[in-house]
């Protein structure tokens, strides 16, 4: 971003100010990091419902008779298994099977897909997809078409159902429908980034503030990027630039389930086959801090005096009231119960490997 260029704003900018948001620069967008406080917003999502503005994310349309085959070759997950009304979590991988971005792929119709990408990578991802389509599929940047609200928490369904059509209680996880919310045309998907039940609502920008206000009136708590990060970390969900990046493969990140290696050829497949044969050199694990302090991204995991790994994300967990995080360690140190030493500003902070996710939402009934 060049000096003096102003930050972009979503259609909900005024709503954020109304709600008392503290705004920060995120990926060139002026976004709410918190309203009443990260801990309070986090707990609202875990116990009731929080409402996030994620309109800054990018949407890419991929259409045409060749769209399925194109996406099947471009991404590691199996696009042929998607029926209209289903989405799946996937990735854009390089030839070395390392991550350009993690993505959601929605199938709207037989020849109509929407790829949702991270805000921080949106322009690059669009170029990546468009430049590889080479007449096989029509690729369009749809990001300006959509505002995106995420309503997350055990009470999300109760708040959304009276406002939405069709009947959103029938939506399965990763299922979506094209209907309305508060009369506004919307794509409603049962997806999220918090580990709770919830919905992501794709809307035309002009309808977003009205739907935002209706959902707040229904009892949702505005929640910002700060809580978004503590929530996804408790659910052990990857964040680009932390757990995944251009030096990381899905196998190292524990995202093996995203890779359908037998589906046929795709970009990065050869590298993944090779890694399957040779084994991974490092493995992503969850850890809990046992000493006093918080381990954060970049802090080294040390053993016998030297660095052997690195923390990718770390925070203080509002649900568990302790410091926890994710780190890359040598595979031989990846078993739950393994003690770790983390170098935090020159001091050794003891931690222990634990199984992930840290948080799993309670089963209903």
């Amino acid at each position, binding site marked *: 971003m060049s000096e003096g260029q102003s930050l972009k704003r979503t259609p909900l900018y005024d709503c954020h100010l109304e709600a008392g948001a503290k705004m920060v620069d995120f990926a060139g967008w002026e976004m709410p990091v918190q309203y009443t406080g*990260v*801990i309070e917003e986090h707990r609202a999502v875990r116990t009731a419902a929080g409402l996030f503005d994620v309109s800054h994310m990018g949407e890419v349309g991929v259409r045409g008779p060749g769209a399925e085959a194109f996406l099947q070759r471009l991404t590691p997950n199996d696009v042929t298994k998607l029926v209209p009304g289903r989405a799946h979590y996937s990735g854009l991988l390089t030839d070395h099977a390392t991550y350009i971005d993690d993505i959601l792929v929605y199938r709207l119709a037989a020849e109509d897909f929407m790829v949702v990408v991270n805000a921080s990578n949106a322009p690059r991802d669009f170029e990546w997809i468009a430049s590889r389509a080479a007449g096989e599929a029509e690729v369009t940047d749809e990001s300006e078409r959509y505002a995106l609200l995420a309503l997350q928490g055990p009470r999300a369904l109760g708040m959304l159902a009276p406002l939405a059509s069709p009947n959103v209680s029938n939506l399965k996880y990763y299922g979506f429908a094209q209907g309305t919310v508060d009369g506004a045309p919307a794509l409603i998907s049962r997806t999220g980034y918090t580990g709770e039940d919830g919905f992501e609502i794709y809307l035309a920008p002009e309808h977003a503030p009205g739907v935002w206000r209706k959902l707040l009136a229904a009892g949702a708590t505005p929640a910002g990027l700060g809580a978004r990060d503590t929530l996804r970390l408790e659910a052990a969900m990857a964040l680009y630039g932390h757990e995944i990046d251009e030096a990381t493969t899905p196998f190292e990140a524990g995202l093996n389930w995203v890779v359908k290696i037998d589906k046929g050829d795709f970009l990065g497949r050869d590298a993944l086959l090779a890694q399957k044969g040779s084994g991974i050199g490092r493995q992503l694990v969850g850890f809990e801090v046992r000493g006093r*302090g918080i381990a954060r991204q970049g802090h080294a995991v040390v053993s016998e005096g030297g660095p052997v790994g690195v923390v990718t994300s770390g*925070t*203080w967990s*509002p649900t568990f009231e302790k*410091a926890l995080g994710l780190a890359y360690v040598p595979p031989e140190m990846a078993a739950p119960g393994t003690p770790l030493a983390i170098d935090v500003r020159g001091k050794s902070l003891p931690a222990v490997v634990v199984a992930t996710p840290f948080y799993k939402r309670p089963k209903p009934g």
Partner: protein
Amino acid sequence: MYPRDYLYSREHEWLRIEDDLCVLGITEFAQHELGEVVFVELPEVGQVFDTNDELGTIESVKAVAEVFTPVAGEVVEVNEAVVDDPELLNEDPHVDGWLIKIRFSSADDLKSMMKAEEYEEYVQSGEA
């Protein structure tokens, strides 16, 4: 908002003089920037520090801030209440949220510190 009888540093610490002791804490501005405090690490009683040494750290969910001492001296008391209940720093940074008491060795260090009005201007200017 900012007590008139305190002195303030550019790093958002405040000092209250009690005879030969300084009571030290962080300001309302600092706690607001940090967010909800979850850990406070303070020095031990008896530790001796130079001007601008790092005394300890304050951690919130999303950030860690080092606390520096504007004065050289010896730590004579530490606020255990804040260690046990870090939220005190957010609730009452200027009184109950005090961090340490230092017996300071020279009043010269105090000369470069700001009075309340100056500190208020400093935080409002956007340079803080």
